[in-house]
């Protein structure tokens, strides 16, 4: 519906105003009007009333139509200005029209006002629309330029000759050329020589009206480096140019290449691994299994693929393995190493060590890798070791003889039993902070170190008597038996020490006594021998003497003296021997 037109009327003659309003009403023009007569009123209402159109008399008592027009042009140039006058004269009217007034109507032909007003309004609306359109066009052109400038993709247009018409700012990034360096140049100058042929073919297709998507070619950047670009292009028949959008493919290609490489690497590892490798879906369905894996499980791949991994597991172990897989799927970083019993085709259970590796997000793999090996031998050995370790522990702890373990490389005590603690007087903590050198006399340390060094590779069982020093400084003789053992991964010597100080002292005592006895026997027998020899000689003399001629009483006296002497000597021997046997003898 047509809106009310706001009309400002400049007219001093009320009669004429009435006639004018009548004409407008008759013509059915809905309007609101304001009548002014003076220059000041006109200027005021031009702003206040905000008219859509002005109808003005030419001759006014204090004013004139030409001046009014000039005022209007200054303030609101877009508002149509129609002269309504009885006395305007052709000449004035033409001058005014020349200056831009919209139209004129003679007062005796007032019926022309309505159509002329309508036309003026129409023209005014057209003008406004056009201005609006121009603004919009300008805005959209600016937006387009912004898109062109901000796009990470390189947007460009080519004319039919193959020359750049426009290029977006991304060219600087992708080709290292600014748009200005490209515009007007032929694409031949920038493309990789090997790609000219296929690019030409692609452009021909585009020019024929077939859009091209994901076309790849290589450009040579300003710095000389080749760069792969993915293009989409479409022909615009209106402008007769090709619109092309190019994207740097280097990154994408590198990513693709990486995936290919990863996949190849993974394949190589998968096929050649000595460990079992199996690709599983997130819920444990076997997708693929390598040769080593088939050997370990004693199933062929075609017997396994499609089955659940958990079918192969001892009922007792299946839940924990299932939980481990679940954890691994939830959190790729979770610790998911597990040992369990796997059931082979022949029904025999084997111990398996397994590690789930979540590679669901790795494009080259896209599954969970079960990495596993048969550890049955190791497991059985471990169980045996645990058992033997327990047995050893008992022997060690309950032994009445001091026992300890020391590191053959550092000589550090690694463990001591209660008997050692009790016998030597050091606490366990003290022992563990000491080396075996600390319980030796200084003069023996070199010898001990050499011996340990010497036997640490041969591992020979060794035995010998050594001097040890207790915490209280007492020296003791110990009979040592030792053997090389592995203790928590360290080469150690297990030592059993038997304190034989008492025995040694006893033997020394005996030896000392024997020595003294020998001395006594030696010396005393000699002492005995002297009187005996004398007696023998005297007896000989008696035998040789002639009893009739010689008095042998002297000889007999001498024999008696010698016998007494002998008696004294024998008594002395008995006394000395008794002295040796006395316990307090030193």
């Amino acid at each position, binding site marked *: 519906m047509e809106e009310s037109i706001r009309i400002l009327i400049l007219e001093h003659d009320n009669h004429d105003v009435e006639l004018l309003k009548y004409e407008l009403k008759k013509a059915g023009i809905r309007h609101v009007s304001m009548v002014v007569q003076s220059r000041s009123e006109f200027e005021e209402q031009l702003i206040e009333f905000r008219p859509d159109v002005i109808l003005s008399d030419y001759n006014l008592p204090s004013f004139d139509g030409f001046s009014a027009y000039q005022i209007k042009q200054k303030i609101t140039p877009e508002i149509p200005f129609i002269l309504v006058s009885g006395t305007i004269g052709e000449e004035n009217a033409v001058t005014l029209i020349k200056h831009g007034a919209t139209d004129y109507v003679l007062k005796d032909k007032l019926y022309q006002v309505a159509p002329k007003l309508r036309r003026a309004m129409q023209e005014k609306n057209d003008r406004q629309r056009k201005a609006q359109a121009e603004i919009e066009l300008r805005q959209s052109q600016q937006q387009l330029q912004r898109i062109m400038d901000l796009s990470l993709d390189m947007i460009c247009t080519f004319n039919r000759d193959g020359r750049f018409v426009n290029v977006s700012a991304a060219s600087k990034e992708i080709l290292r050329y600014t748009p200005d360096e490209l515009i007007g140049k032929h694409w031949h100058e920038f493309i990789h020589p090997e790609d000219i042929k296929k690019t030409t073919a692609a452009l021909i297709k585009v020019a024929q009206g077939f859009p091209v998507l994901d076309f790849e070619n290589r450009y040579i950047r300003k710095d000389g480096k080749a760069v792969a670009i993915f293009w989409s292009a479409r022909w615009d028949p209106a402008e007769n140019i090709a619109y092309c959008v190019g994207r740097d493919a280097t990154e994408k290609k590198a990513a693709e290449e990486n995936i290919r490489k990863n996949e190849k690497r993974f394949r190589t590892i998968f096929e050649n691994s000595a460990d079992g490798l199996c690709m599983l879906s997130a819920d444990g369905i076997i997708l693929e299994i390598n040769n080593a894996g088939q050997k370990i499980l004693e199933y062929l791949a075609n017997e396994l693929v499609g089955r659940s991994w958990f079918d192969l597991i001892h009922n007792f172990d299946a839940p924990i393995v299932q939980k481990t897989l679940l954890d691994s799927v939830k959190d790729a970083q979770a610790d998911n190493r597990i040992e369990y019993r796997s059931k082979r085709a022949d029904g025999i259970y084997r111990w398996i060590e397994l590690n789930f590796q979540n590679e669901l997000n790795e494009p080259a793999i896209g599954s969970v890798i079960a990495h596993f090996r048969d550890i049955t031998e190791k497991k059985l050995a471990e169980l045996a070791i645990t058992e033997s370790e327990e047995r050893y522990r008992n022997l060690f702890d309950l032994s009445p003889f001091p026992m300890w373990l020391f590191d053959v490389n550092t000589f550090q005590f690694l463990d001591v039993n209660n008997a050692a603690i009790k016998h030597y007087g050091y606490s366990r903590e003290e022992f563990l902070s000491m080396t075996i050198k600390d319980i030796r006399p200084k003069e023996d340390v070199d010898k001990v170190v050499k011996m340990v060094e010497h036997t640490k590779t041969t591992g020979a069982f060794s035995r010998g008597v050594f001097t040890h020093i207790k915490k209280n400084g007492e020296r003791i003789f110990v009979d040592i038996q030792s053997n090389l053992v592995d203790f928590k991964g360290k080469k150690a010597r297990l030592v059993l020490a038997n304190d034989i100080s008492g025995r040694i002292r006893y033997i020394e005592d005996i030896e000392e006594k024997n020595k003294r006895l020998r001395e006594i026997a*030696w*010396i005393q027998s*000699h002492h005995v*021998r*002297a009187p005996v*020899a*004398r007696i023998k*000689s*005297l007896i*000989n*003399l008696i035998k*040789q003497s002639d009893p009739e001629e010689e008095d042998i009483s*002297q000889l007999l006296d*001498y024999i008696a*003296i*010698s016998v007494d002497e002998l008696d004294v000597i024998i008594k002395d021997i008995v006394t000395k021997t008794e002295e040796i046997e006395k316990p307090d003898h030193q």
Partner: protein
Amino acid sequence: MSVKILVVDDDDVILFITKTNLIKSGLCSDPLTFLNGKFALDHLLANHQGDDRYLIFLDINMPLMNGWNFLDEINKTPLSKRITVIMVTSSIDSRDKAKAKEYSQVVNYIEKPLNFETCQSLRNFEPIAHLF
């Protein structure tokens, strides 16, 4: 030339046995006996005459002057050239036996007592045979 025989020992019985055997074996009719080296030395220094030779049966362990001291003392006198010594001792110390060899006058080392058979064999004992 005559040889005089001296027996030096601190044991009366030994002196008696030795003297008796020396006489009975006919090696000497009047051996002189002394209870220690000092007495023997004093006697020699006081009574030696002209070219007298002396065969001395000498013990080692004696009071006052033992056998070694006796030898040392007599070696300080011209008599040293005129004595021949046979050690007659009960010493079992091998060092004594070794020491005896250091004295040129010592010709034998006999375990005491000197018995009859030994006395007889000494007459033919080469180092002293010339004395008889």
